[in-house]
C-alpha cells in the first residue's frame, strides 16, 4: 500500500490562467521521509492542500493511505503542520493539544497521557500552562509539530517545520523526524532548507511551475556518476603518471584529487596501479554535490528549457 499516490493531479486557479499544479503524478512509499522541493509558487503547498482536502482538484485523482482524498475519515491517521498555522491565542500549550486532539477524535484518557509526553518531546514541557500569545515563532512551530502528532498519525504532512527554529532546535526536529520514520511513520516534508532536507530525506521530488521535474532517492541525485575524490598520503607524482597512462581525467580540489573514470572497472584498474606503485591511499570517496547545487541545476535547466 502506498502512503500517497497522485495521478495527473491538476489544480488551476483564475479560470485556468494560473496552473498551480499541472498533471502531477507521484508515488510515495510508506515508512519514508519524502521531501518536496521547489521555488516559491512551484505548487508545493497546493499539493499538500489538495491531498488534505483543503482545496479541490481541477482534474486528476489522488489517494492517501489507499483511500481517496475526499474521504475525511482517513484524516484520523494523518497529522498536519500548516505553513502559517494559527492556533487560538487565548489557549495555553496544553489546551491547544487538548482541543485539537479532541477534534482529531482522540479520547480524553489518551490525551491526558499523551499531552505531557508530546510537550516534553518538543521541549515545551515547562510551558504547558503558558498562553501561546507569549510564545516565540520557534515555540509555536514546536507546538505545531506536537499538535500534528497528537493523534499518533501514520502519515505526517509538515509544511516548513523548521521555519523560525534555531540551529539547535532544527537538529532536534531532524532527530525527531528520523525517530518517527524509524517508528514506521511516513513523513511528507515541504521545506526550503535544502541542507535539512538532504540530511533527513529518503526521497525527494522537485517541482516547478506545478510540474514534477525530478523524483528519486536523494543519494542518486547528489552522487556524481564515475567521479571520485581521491585522498593520498604521498607519491603524488606517480599518481599523476598513472592517471595519464590510464586516460583518467584529473583535477586538483582542496588538497585532494577528483578523478573521472569510465566505469567501475576503470576505477579498479586505477587502484591496482596505485597499489602496485606503493601509493598509500588515504580515501576514495564517490563524488557528491550538495542537494542545493543539484536543485539549482535542475530548476535553472528548466528555466533555460523554457
Amino acid at each position: 500500500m502506498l502512503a500517497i499516490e497522485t495521478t495527473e493531479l491538476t489544480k488551476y486557479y483564475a479560470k485556468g490562467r494560473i496552473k498551480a499544479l499541472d498533471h502531477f503524478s507521484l508515488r510515495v512509499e510508506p515508512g519514508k521521509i519524502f521531501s518536496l522541493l521547489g521555488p516559491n509558487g512551484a505548487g508545493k503547498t497546493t499539493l499538500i492542500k489538495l491531498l488534505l482536502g483543503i482545496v479541490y482538484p481541477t482534474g486528476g485523482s489522488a489517494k492517501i493511505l489507499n483511500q481517496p482524498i475526499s474521504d475525511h475519515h482517513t484524516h484520523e491517521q494523518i497529522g498536519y503542520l500548516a505553513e502559517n498555522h494559527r492556533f487560538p491565542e487565548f489557549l495555553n500549550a496544553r489546551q491547544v493539544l487538548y482541543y485539537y486532539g479532541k477534534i482529531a477524535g482522540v479520547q480524553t484518557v489518551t490525551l491526558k497521557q499523551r499531552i505531557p509526553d508530546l510537550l516534553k518531546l518538543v521541549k515545551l514541557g515547562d510551558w504547558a500552562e503558558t498562553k501561546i500569545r507569549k510564545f516565540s515563532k520557534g515555540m509555536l512551530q514546536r507546538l505545531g509539530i506536537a499538535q500534528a502528532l497528537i493523534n499518533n498519525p501514520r502519515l505526517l504532512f509538515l509544511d516548513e517545520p523548521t521555519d523560525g527554529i534555531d540551529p539547535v532546535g532544527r537538529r532536534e526536529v531532524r532527530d525527531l523526524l528520523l525517530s518517527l520514520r524509524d517508528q514506521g511513520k511516513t513523513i511528507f516534508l515541504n521545506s526550503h532548507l535544502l541542507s535539512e532536507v538532504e540530511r533527513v530525506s529518503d526521497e525527494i521530488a522537485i517541482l516547478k511551475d506545478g510540474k514534477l521535474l525530478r523524483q528519486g532517492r536523494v543519494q542518486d541525485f547528489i552522487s556524481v556518476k564515475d567521479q571520485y575524490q581521491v585522498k593520498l598520503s604521498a607519491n603524488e607524482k606517480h599518481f599523476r603518471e598513472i592517471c595519464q597512462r590510464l586516460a583518467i581525467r584529473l583535477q586538483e580540489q582542496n588538497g585532494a584529487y577528483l578523478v573521472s573514470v569510465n566505469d567501475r572497472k576503470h576505477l579498479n584498474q586505477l587502484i591496482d596501479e596505485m597499489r602496485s606503485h606503493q601509493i598509500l591511499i588515504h580515501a576514495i570517496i564517490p563524488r557528491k554535490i550538495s542537494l542545493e547545487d543539484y536543485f539549482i541545476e535542475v530548476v535553472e535547466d528548466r528555466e533555460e528549457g523554457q
Partner: protein
Amino acid sequence: MMKTLALIQLTFRESFAKKTFIAFFAISTMLCFLFIFALNLDIVDGVKSSVSLFGKETGKLIELQKILLALEGAVAVALFTGGLFMSLFATSNLIPSLTQPGNIDLLISKPLSRTQILTGRFLGAVSIVAFNVFYLVIFSWLIFSLKTGLWNWGFLLSGVMIVLAFAVLYSLMTFLGVMIRSSAFSLMVTYLIIFFSPMLLQRDKIYALLSNKIYGYIVDSLYYFLPKTAELGNITQQLVRGVPITSWMPLWSSLLFGIFMLGITSFIFSRKNF
C-alpha cells in the same frame, strides 16, 4: 459527536477570551439587579395595594396578575430586541475568524466533515447566546415570580423565542461570513433585515405607494422569504401574556429561512477552496 462538542467548547472559549461573553453576562446581571431594585410591590390579599416601577406608582387596585403579565410582556419584548442586537454583535466575528487561513486548514485536516466544522461553530454561537439569554430570562423570571408570588411559566418561552430568532438571523450571518468573510458586513446586512421586518409587516400600506404591481410581488416575496423578526417579537409577547397565537406562520417560515440558509451555506462551505 465528541469532535463537534470540542468545536462548540472552543467557540465558547473564544467568546470568553474576547470578553464578549463576559460583557454579555455582566449586562444580563446588571439588568436583573435593575429589576430587583426597580420593582416594588405591596400586596394585600392577592391584590396589589401599590406597585411602583422605577419609583413611579403605576395605578391602584389592579389585579396583580394583569400587572405582572403586562410587565413581563414588556420586559420580554425589550429582551427580544435588545438580546438579539447584543447577541448578533457579540457573535459576529465567530464565522469570519473560523475561515481565517491557518485556522481553517488545520480544522479541515482533522477527521471531520466541513459540514461538521460549520455546524460546530454555528451551534457554539447559538449555545453562547442560549446560555446568556436563559440566564437573563430565568433570573428575571425568578425576581418577578418571587416578588409577586405568581409564577408565569409563559415568560420562560421568551427565552426559547429569542434563541430561535437568533439562530434564524445567525444562519444569515453564517452565510455572509462564509461568502464575504467580513463580520462588519454580515452584521450590517442582518441589522438591515431586522429593520426591514416591521416595514414588510406593513406592506399593505406600502402597496399604495408602489407604481407597478410587480413591485408589490417583490415586496410580498421578500416578506415571505425573510425572517419575520417583528412578528416573532409579537409572538414572544403573546406567549408571555398568555394570549392565544393566531398564526404560527412567522415562526415556521422564519425557521425555514434559517434551515435554507444553513443548507446553502453548508453546500458552499463544503465546496470552497481555502
